[in-house]
């Protein structure tokens, strides 16, 4: 931590004073500007605009958020909200971050239900879907660059892909077997 005097999640006694309402507003702004990549906008708002976090604090929180289940940036905002304004702050941050996108996406769903069967809409959706797949696969390729050039990580990636994507076993079984195995090996430092 860059500032060991301040812990990650305990409400701060020093540092900027931030109200739950301010957290709600900032998280709303982050999420509503976040077309394609929440992380970029979250860093811009929390580190550059509001200066609630230092660069190092943001990276630390994001790393932690990636380890935990659930969306990374949601985990970051929960920790930031709690740190500045306790439970109310955490709740305000989550409401800001998720509330608006829920309404927008359901609005899109309503339009889809009403007009989705029209042939021109069908054609547009087919094209959009094909692009969305390309974007997803591109992010896999980007992530793959962080894997070490050893056979074991690639074996685990392959097993996860075949188990869930090809054989179509339930994710719970595949993760239940692979995750403890992979973490144990990494713990023993064999990879």
């Amino acid at each position, binding site marked *: 931590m860059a500032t060991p005097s301040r812990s990650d999640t305990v409400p701060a006694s020093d540092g900027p004073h931030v109200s739950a309402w301010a957290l709600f507003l900032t998280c709303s702004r982050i999420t509503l500007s976040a077309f394609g990549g929440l992380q970029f906008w979250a860093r811009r708002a929390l580190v550059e605009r509001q200066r609630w976090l230092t660069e190092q604090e943001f990276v630390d929180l994001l790393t932690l958020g990636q380890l935990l289940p*659930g969306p990374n940036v949601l985990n970051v905002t929960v920790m930031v909200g709690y740190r500045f304004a306790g439970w109310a702050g955490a709740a305000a941050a989550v409401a800001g971050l998720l509330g608006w996108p829920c309404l927008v*996406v359901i609005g899109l769903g309503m339009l889809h239900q009403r007009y989705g069967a029209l042939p021109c809409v069908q054609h547009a959706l087919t094209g959009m879907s094909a692009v*969305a797949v390309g*974007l997803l*696969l591109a992010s896999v390729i980007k992530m793959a660059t962080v894997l070490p050039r050893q056979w074991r990580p690639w074996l685990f990636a392959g097993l*996860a*892909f075949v188990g869930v994507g090809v054989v179509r076993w339930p994710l719970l079984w595949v993760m239940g077997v692979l995750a403890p195995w992979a973490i144990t090996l*990494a713990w023993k430092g064999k990879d």
Partner: protein
Amino acid sequence: MDRPALGALVLQSLVWAFLAIGGAPTLLPDIHRYVVEVHHWMTSTQFAEVYALAQVAPGPNIMYVTLIGWQVAGWAGAAATTLPWLVPTSTLTLLVGHLHARHPQAALGHAIRRGLTPITLGLMFASGWTLMRTVDHDWRGFLLTLLAGVLVLRTPWNPLWLIAAGALAGLAGLV
């Protein structure tokens, strides 16, 4: 949807929320399996369309989960798939945040990350694979997918423009 099915959806969403290490896209094959193959609540094509729609919406990438819930069972379904994400995982986040503040260099955290990264990657690839088999019916679809992937890697363009271009390509009858 009747009440037992909705309850099952809530339970299943809780499982998903805790399995979503590395983000919601890793869940896509399992959600597809559950919603399309096991329960037949929507067709594979509808599933892919809902995913594409959610990509256009702002916010975190779990929004497709909300939209699938809504498609399957209206507002109750949206709540059933979204709320399990919030309370339990956020509580876990705060708990681990506390521990992390006390032991920032814990070796277990490193081991977990190193161990899980390859699995996350494999699952993301499975997501792309699942969608691709649904969406791309012939070489033109594959070509558009390939082109979108290459462009987003090689150019600084906002992905939203690529999705819009995909819509136009579809309207023009190219895919």
